[in-house]
């Protein structure tokens, strides 16, 4: 079976989603569920930590596109951190850096959220 895992952590008012393994058309629904439950609980400040993510496909990228507007409409955001070069390359190829903030480290993204308070 596809090796993919989503884990959500609380850091103050920010929720950190940790992704592990392969995020593709097959595993995208899991991430979708995670975002749905975050929105249900009115958590709109999201940091996605890609540290252990090995691969992302366009269906995976689509999930971020699908939820970013809701987050921003509720004065939150989706910020990306700890991406390896290959994964970043895919984001970069498709022009994501123009629309999303990318950080070297999770803490920097969390700080950015806290500073904007």
């Amino acid at each position: 079976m596809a090796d993919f895992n989503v884990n959500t952590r609380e850091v103050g008012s920010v929720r950190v989603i940790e992704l592990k393994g392969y995020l593709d058309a097959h595993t995208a629904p899991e991430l979708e569920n995670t975002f749905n439950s975050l929105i249900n609980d009115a958590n709109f400040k999201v940091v996605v930590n890609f540290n252990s993510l090995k691969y992302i496909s366009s269906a995976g990228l689509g999930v971020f596109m699908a939820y970013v507007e809701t987050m921003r409409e509720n004065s939150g955001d989706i910020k990306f951190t700890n991406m390896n070069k290959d994964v970043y390359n895919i984001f970069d190829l498709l022009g994501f850096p123009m629309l999303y903030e990318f950080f070297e480290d999770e803490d920097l993204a969390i700080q950015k959220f806290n500073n904007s308070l």
Partner: protein
Amino acid sequence: MLAKDNSTAIGNLSALVDFSNLINSSLDLEFALNNILLTCFGKFHTTKGLIALTDNSGYVSASASKGISKEVIDSFPKLNEDNLKNESVELNEFMSKNNLEIKRIIETSSGILGIIILGKRFTKQPYSDEDLDFLKTITNIGSTAIENSLAVDKLRKVNRDLDAKVNQLSSLFDLSKEFSGILSKERITKLLTYSIIGQLLVTKYAIIYCDDHNYDILESKFDEEKLTSLFQKNNCATISEPLFGDNLNNNYSGLTETGVEIVVPMLIKGKTKGLILVGRRRNLQPFTKSDIEFVSSVGGLAIISIENASLFEETLEKQRLEKDLEIARNIQRNLLPDKIPNLNYAEIAAYNQSARQVGGDYYDVIKLDDKRTVVAIADVSGKGVQAALLMANLQAFLRAISKQNIDISEASNLINDLVSENTMGGSFITFFWGILDEDKKSFKYVNAGHNPPLHISQGKMAKLKTGGMIFGVMETLIPYKSETVSLSSGDSIILFTDGITEAMDVTKTEYSDERLEELVLTKCKNSAQEIINSVVDDVKLHTKGANQSDDITSLVIKIK
């Protein structure tokens, strides 16, 4: 003088070696251009300069500059390579207006790369021949570095395009694997949209399925009402090629007004089965040919999966129906009597053949006591389990009521009330029943809308029609009438369902009442079993080669 010349020459030479080392150490274009300008600034003591390179379109544009304002750069004239080679009036005007004094074409053996333009010297002294020679040397060394960096830039771009293509292909591969495993239209649509919005960076989209007559907006982030009104006017199935830009605007201005930028049809064997509508890209970049190809490809994959999913659903539905029919057939079979009771005064033969699509024929022979026997035949409307259950109800009512010793017309009223209460959705039963009475040598019957049985006595035929309305339409308002016919030895009564008289041959001609009546008249001297065999054989002869569309049931009573 000579010594000074020498030291200048050596100074120049070592500066050139440094420059050459430095500029060739990097393949970064900006770095190379910057260093050419800075080296010139250092050598000539000037504070202004720009390098313009020819771009893909063949025109020259400013690629690096120092000490020159943006407004001035923007006013740089539009020049091509020929303008550079020949003295261009515009360029000279531009230079004199902005205090730029010298220019030199940057070229390699393969052609002109661009031009370097420098401002007046800080010392106000004009450029000497020596200076011009130095500039020539610098541009010669620099041109190779520029060419290399340009080539690397180009390679990087090619590489990036390739990466993008590889990424698209791997997305497609990923999806094709995934799509083939999903059999839900909703799930396929969801994945399709994720792939498109992820790949194209859009948030506005719609997925529409359609055929020649119908359309179904499965997902839409556009104004759905507007789309609906648009597609009511325009048949989506006529869009068989991707539409965008002017082509879209001219033909479907309503779509562009709602924010749609690309319309891509989803095709199966060249027929449009759906549309993907895509809105503006979030990073405002224009869509490329490759983007449209991507949408087209995922759309193609998705629509095939959707088609498969609906075929699968149809098959499931068919299997469910088959199962349903089989259950119904079993119920029906179990409702018919296993054995016809032997009577002293009459011989009874029965025949029932179910059509593949189960109908609702039913017959029964119930011995009330040694002298009296109930004979019944019915045709329950509808097919499948519903008809079978109604038939089971009827059997239960009939058997219960037969034991009650109620008059047959009163009993018919009761059965109709019970059936009416228990049916819904327009089910009904045509029903005929009668009681054979040995002592009275009679047959008392009620016909509730059933094909009239034929009573043949001494070569004469009568139809047993007395009764009332078919069962199950409404509760009994007008009581059922009964009739009693006397029986003598040798009489036959032939009961049958419309499956016999309406049995069709290959030309759709019905077997007909007349043919049945004629046949039984000639066979009335035979035994009950022989009569029924003749009827069945004749019907089979008639329907040879055609499908049996309805149940065939017949019951023959022969008075001993």
